[in-house]
């Protein structure tokens, strides 16, 4: 038996993301165990609730390490990951995270690995679509003033000069904000050509609903979350027309993902989203890398994973061809998606960068 710990946002504000991630992890663990485990060892999955509180997540990581884990999975919220990755690093513990904040791989921590690439990689793809695809110049930016949103915001603002955008409205919002009336009104009166939305799921949906209510007729683009299935479910018709860049989506024209999504739906009774896929991939990363080195050795695990490329053909659980660089950052193909009639539609497949 080999023990794997998943520290995730099972309660608190991040439960939506963390719980889905955890279900993805569970699905993969079941599959791997059914197929004989890793190096013949069955995986024993231990879950730890970070309560979406960075301090608790730190304690939980500490606890997971104390209680013995081979590799660590989690957390999803960047605000937690930046904290608890320090502990994992001190203990030489490889950590596979679902966070997408650019800062995480920028800290020179040799033990951290992503399951989806950071916002700094996705946003240029979106920006060029805004500029070239839509011809937008005046942009309104609506972002969550949290660790998560801040990362996306900084990454996007870094691109403004390169693309020659003019930011006509800069609207930070609160965590778990429910009332977006003033934010929409501000965007509306700013004279923007397009809106860049970088919020978490419910907030994205609330923003879209309010925008619809106030008849805000602007193209609204975002990264991953804005056009996720969850947001579409929540916002209903108001989500139509939103578009964005997606690293992972259950709608991707990739058979392996479709298959995984179907299994997920069957197992848990709701649709998989990018967080589910991330958790799923995380487990398979552990399997493939361990099998490559042939033993359970954390040091070697981290060493091997740095700079590794896994192709989906021989490693089906990884779903798409993926490479990791020296910092733990990863790259693979991604997609441009638009919401049409309440469903994601892939408009473009973008190459890995």
């Amino acid at each position, binding site marked *: 038996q080999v023990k794997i710990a998943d520290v995730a946002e099972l309660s608190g504000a991040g439960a939506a993301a963390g*719980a889905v991630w955890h279900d993805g992890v569970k699905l993969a663990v079941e599959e791997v165990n059914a197929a004989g485990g890793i190096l013949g060892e069955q995986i024993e999955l231990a879950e730890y609730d970070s309560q979406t509180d960075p301090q608790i997540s730190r304690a939980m990581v500490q606890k997971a390490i104390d209680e013995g884990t081979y590799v660590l999975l989690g957390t999803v919220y960047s605000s937690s990951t930046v904290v608890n990755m320090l502990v994992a690093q001190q203990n030489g513990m490889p950590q596979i995270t679902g966070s997408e904040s650019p800062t995480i791989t920028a800290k020179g921590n040799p033990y951290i690995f992503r399951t989806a690439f950071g916002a700094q990689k996705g946003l240029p793809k979106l920006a060029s679509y805004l500029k070239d695809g839509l011809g937008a110049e005046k942009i309104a930016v609506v972002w969550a003033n949290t660790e998560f949103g801040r990362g996306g915001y900084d990454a996007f603002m870094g691109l403004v000069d390169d693309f020659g955008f003019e930011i006509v409205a800069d609207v930070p919002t609160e965590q*778990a904000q429910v009332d977006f009336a003033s934010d929409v*009104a501000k965007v509306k009166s700013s004279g923007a050509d397009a809106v860049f939305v970088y919020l978490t799921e419910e907030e994205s949906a609330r923003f879209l609903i309010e925008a619809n209510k106030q008849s805000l007729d602007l193209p609204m683009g975002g990264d991953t979350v804005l056009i996720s299935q969850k947001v579409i479910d929540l916002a209903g018709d108001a989500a139509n027309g939103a578009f964005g860049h997606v690293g992972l989506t259950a709608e991707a024209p990739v058979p392996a993902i479709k298959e995984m999504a179907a299994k997920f739906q069957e197992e848990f009774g709701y649709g998989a989203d990018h967080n589910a896929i991330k958790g799923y991939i995380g487990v398979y990363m552990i399997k493939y890398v361990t099998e490559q080195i042939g033993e359970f050795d954390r040091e070697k695990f981290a060493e091997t994973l740095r700079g590794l490329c896994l192709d989906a053909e021989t490693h089906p659980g990884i779903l798409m061809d993926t490479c990791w660089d020296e910092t733990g950052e990863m790259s693979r193909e991604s997609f441009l998606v638009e919401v049409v009639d309440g469903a994601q539609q892939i408009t473009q497949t973008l190459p890995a960068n």
Partner: protein
Amino acid sequence: MSEFFQLIVSGLSTGSIYALAAVGFTLLWQASQTINFAQGEFVMLPAFLVLALSVKLGFPLWLAMPLAIILAVLILGVLFKRLVVEPMIKHGTLPLVIATIALGVLLKEMVKEFYSPLGQPFPSLFPQDVVTIFGAVISIPDIANFVIAMGAIVALQLFLGGTRTGRSMQATAQNPDVAQILGVDIKRMVLYTFMINGALAAIASILITPIYLAKFSNGETLGLIAFIAAIVGGFNQIRGALVGGLLIGIIDNLSATYVSAEYRQALPLILLIVIILIRPQGLLGTSEGRTV
């Protein structure tokens, strides 16, 4: 200008719902000196009752909503009063405050565990059509929210001030010992207030959730706003809570737009601190009278 007007209109619409929550808050304070830190969760829960009835049990919406209100009155009114408040009412405010904090956690966790940790879409009672006045877009739900909330509050005010039951409730609130000696059935009076609060919370919930979405954690923000609105209004006045709710709705919108979005929460708070320090009894509250 149209932006300004838009902000006022939106502020009034959400503000009226804050007012509903705040009025309930004030009522509980009056009846039992309960500062209900679970008030936000009280507004969060009924939406999930509607969802459970309609989505999970397949009731039609027109039936699910009244049923949910009744359930809310039973759970948040009768049950809450019987199980939590009654045993503690003699012991002052603090234990009750703590119990309501714990109750808030309990409700949140139960919804999360037994329904879903994810946000849920919620059907709107009203068509989504809009009218445009002076460049501001006003939706039918906005108008309906405002009218229903006002109606509920005015009715309540008349009931409390104009009937003997209402005054017995006030007496119970101010001096339960005396009320008891005079033969007021204080338990029943307290029960009434809790039931009314349950109903108000349910109405607020059904009105606000189509926009805010049903999520277990929604109560955190709402509860706080209700508390603030009740304070501004003066805590011992129904119409104070009304004014407080509307004011918060508008100030929040205006300050987020014209002052600083990063400090959007700050301005209403600072303003309120100033109000309180100038008028310690709140905007419409009355002073507690002679102390010596």
